[in-house]
């Protein structure tokens, strides 16, 4: 067999007392796409960060094209033609695309020549980049393109992509995959980290699996299936079917009538949206990013000023309460519990520097006697969430910023669901979560459904939306494009509704 482009031998890396990688040995060859799989916190990103020079291994060796390589900094990695596209983009917002691309290269500043070279790369692989556009004006997918052009500009022929599709629409994902296949055929070695099984099956040539920092094995994609890969990742048998119990006695719980929202720049974000969410049902909300899902959830939670329309909460006895104009806290006090998993889990939902218990208290700090807070019940809750969702953390008094992304999300979802709401709203609850944790969250959402909670579920994976939800409300450009019953519809119908109002061509 050919000499591997990258060969890792017995790589070990620890953070304090946590072992992130334990004697991992792994090879990547040219002209292949390797999918690196593993649950959250299994050490995939840490391993890749060592190849790209962000971290340095405690022990073990890295070989590039058969020769031992010492990678102490990202610059060393560039010299070995290794380029990494990070999950959180490494771009300077106030710089243009071209400025970001040339950043750190030791030559005189020649923006005109740079732009020519960028156009060349774009032509070769089929990208579209405007070199003069500022990064803060770009969509997520444009930013990602800049990141990829950046590493190619440096002549990288070993590419590492950390969850590149997490924030892309299906169409953008297809375009990215086409580009990656082009690069593979061009003889580059590509490593992709992803949690989405159908992407692994569609794109990769080989898969390598990590579990709890250890290398479990590698397989040819053509000789395996999602079930086998998942079992390897998790370490035991898991069912890949999402349960969908039939709704019991659904009654209207939340009625939204002609809701319109205008943002600070005067752009209409929601236009005359009406729908009803029933108790004991999961209502999915689908739409391409920026179509108004965020505004919809925020107006129900009382976080977003509303232009016109009504939002009614219906009590069990049939009495109506208007939610618009109430303070978020007031909405909660009235017994209308709205639980909200914000899109940006660390920015809006949790305080990074506070520990798990304190973060739990953010929801219950008013519960103590007099001027004192009650710390006992949040401690109990934190321990419960850690046990139930298998959060990997030294203890409940660890600041959440020290947890890996997936574990942070588990803490957030766990807290919101524990609030025993009557209406539960979640946005991207499983974004960035591995299969096992995602299924735990689906299970929790189903438990809420059985408790007669009206669930609003904003998700980006259409397969999951259609399997988990009872109905799906499709938004397109702030308008209701359609309401479909998940039991008798398919992905393409929803996809068409997402991109065109009413799903009709023209």
């Amino acid at each position, binding site marked *: 067999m050919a000499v591997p482009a990258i060969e890792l031998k017995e790589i070990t890396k620890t*953070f304090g007392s946590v072992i992130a990688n334990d004697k991992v040995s792994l090879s990547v060859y040219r002209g292949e796409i390797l999918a690196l799989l593993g649950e959250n916190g299994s050490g995939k990103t840490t391993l890749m960060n060592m190849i*790209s020079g*962000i*971290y340095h291994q405690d022990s073990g060796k890295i070989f590039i094209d058969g020769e031992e390589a010492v990678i102490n*900094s*990202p*610059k060393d*990695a*560039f010299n070995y033609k290794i380029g*990494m596209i*990070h999950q959180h983009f*490494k*771009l*300077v*917002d*106030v*710089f243009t695309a071209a*400025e*970001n691309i*040339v*950043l*750190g*290269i*030791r*030559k*005189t*500043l020649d923006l005109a020549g740079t732009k020519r070279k960028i156009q060349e790369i774009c032509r070769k692989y089929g990208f579209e980049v405007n070199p003069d556009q*500022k990064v*803060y004006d770009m969509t997520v997918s444009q930013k990602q393109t800049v990141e990829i052009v*950046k590493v190619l500009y440096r002549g990288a022929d070993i590419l590492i992509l950390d969850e590149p599709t997490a924030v892309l629409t299906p169409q953008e994902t297809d375009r990215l995959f086409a580009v990656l296949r082009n690069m593979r055929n061009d003889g580059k070695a590509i490593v992709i980290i992803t949690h989405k099984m159908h992407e692994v099956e569609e794109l990769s040539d080989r898969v390598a699996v990590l579990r709890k920092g250890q290398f479990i094995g590698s397989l040819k994609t053509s000789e395996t299936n999602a079930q086998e890969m998942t079992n390897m990742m998790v370490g035991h048998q898991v069912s890949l079917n999402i349960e969908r119990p039939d709704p019991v006695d659904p009654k209207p719980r939340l009625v939204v009538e002609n809701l319109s929202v205008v943002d600070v720049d005067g752009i209409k974000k929601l236009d005359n949206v009406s729908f009803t969410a029933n108790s004991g049902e999961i209502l999915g909300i689908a739409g391409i990013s920026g179509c108004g899902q965020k505004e919809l959830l925020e107006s129900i939670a009382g976080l977003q000023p509303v232009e016109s329309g009504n939002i009614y909460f219906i009590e069990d006895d049939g009495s109506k309460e208007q939610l618009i104009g109430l303070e978020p806290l007031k909405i909660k006090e009235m017994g209308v519990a709205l639980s909200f998993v914000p899109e940006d889990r660390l920015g809006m939902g949790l305080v990074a520097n506070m520990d798990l218990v304190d973060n739990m208290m953010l929801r219950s700090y008013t519960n103590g006697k007099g001027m004192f807070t009650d710390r006992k019940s949040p401690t109990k809750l934190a321990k419960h969430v850690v046990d139930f969702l298998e959060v990997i953390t030294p203890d409940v008094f660890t600041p959440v*910023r*020290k947890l*890996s992304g997936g574990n942070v999300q588990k803490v957030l979802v766990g807290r919101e669901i524990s609030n025993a709401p009557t209406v539960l709203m979640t946005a991207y609850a499983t974004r960035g979560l591995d299969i096992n944790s995602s299924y735990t969250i689906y299970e929790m959402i189903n438990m809420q459904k059985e408790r007669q909670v009206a669930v609003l579920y904003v998700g980006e994976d259409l397969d999951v939306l259609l399997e988990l939800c009872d109905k799906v409300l499709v938004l397109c450009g702030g308008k209701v494009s359609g309401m479909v019953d998940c039991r008798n519809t398919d992905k393409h119908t929803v996809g068409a509704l997402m991109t065109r109002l009413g799903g009709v061509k023209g």
Partner: protein
Amino acid sequence: MFGTIAYLLGSSIRQGIPLLFGATGEILTEKGGHLNLGIPGIMYVGGISGIIGGYLYEHFCANPNPALCILIPLLATIIGSGLMALIFSFLTVTLRANQNVTGLTLTTFGIGIGNFFGASLLSFFGDSGSISLLTIGKWYKAALIPGLDFGFLAYLAVIIAIAVSFYLNRTRAGLNMRAVGENPATADAAGINVTKYQYLSTIIGGIIAGLGGLYWVMDYTGGTWTNNGFGDRGWLAIAIVIFALWKPVLGIFCSFLFGGLYICCILIPGLSSAAKELITMAPYVVTILVLIITSIKNKRENQPPAHLGLNYFREDR
């Protein structure tokens, strides 16, 4: 009439030069991502270092040479303010201490050093009276362009401001430094030596600011020292950074404007002391207005560097 305007303009510029040095230094520091609130202290140290250097030269040399009269205090200032900035960068870059606390401490420390040596320097050498280096002051005050009453440091301030602007906007090293100030993780991943740029921006920034102190003691006051004589001009320099939207060339005009506002209370005859104090406030009020306006307009290019005041640790999770 023309004479009055020329006089006003000249006074404003002379008042503005130390502010310009301070502001340019702080802009360079902040563009590298570090908020050095020690600038007022560094300017005091810059001033007193120049005085010490000059005094020692005059004290031990019978026939002072004009070139050395200029070079020795200049070198002393560069060393003094450079050391102060080195303390700041070592604490904040290498030891990752809180930048606000470190800066404020350094200001208190620097003003203390200035006043201590200002009051006791002569007694170390058995002299008495007050510090007065009139020969050296004369060389510093000598008009570089005949007919215009500005010493060479005034021109240097403007040249440095333009040079820093060119460096930040037109060179690759400047691009790298701005990237470090905006997003060090990105700069790091791009292969830029973040620590090197952080040290360079704070130390060179500190030295530039220190020259403002030198200008004050040698040129403006002609080689004399008064305790607390430099006043709160260091803080005014930091206010100018905001007013100038982190643009060194804009900083030139802002410094002259602030210099004018700072002394106009002296130039307007017949003001009560309360009115004088109120007018002295003007630069700060204007700065607050600028902050309000830029915050409302919210243009991304006019915001402070995104990582300003935050320390960077590569392996932080």
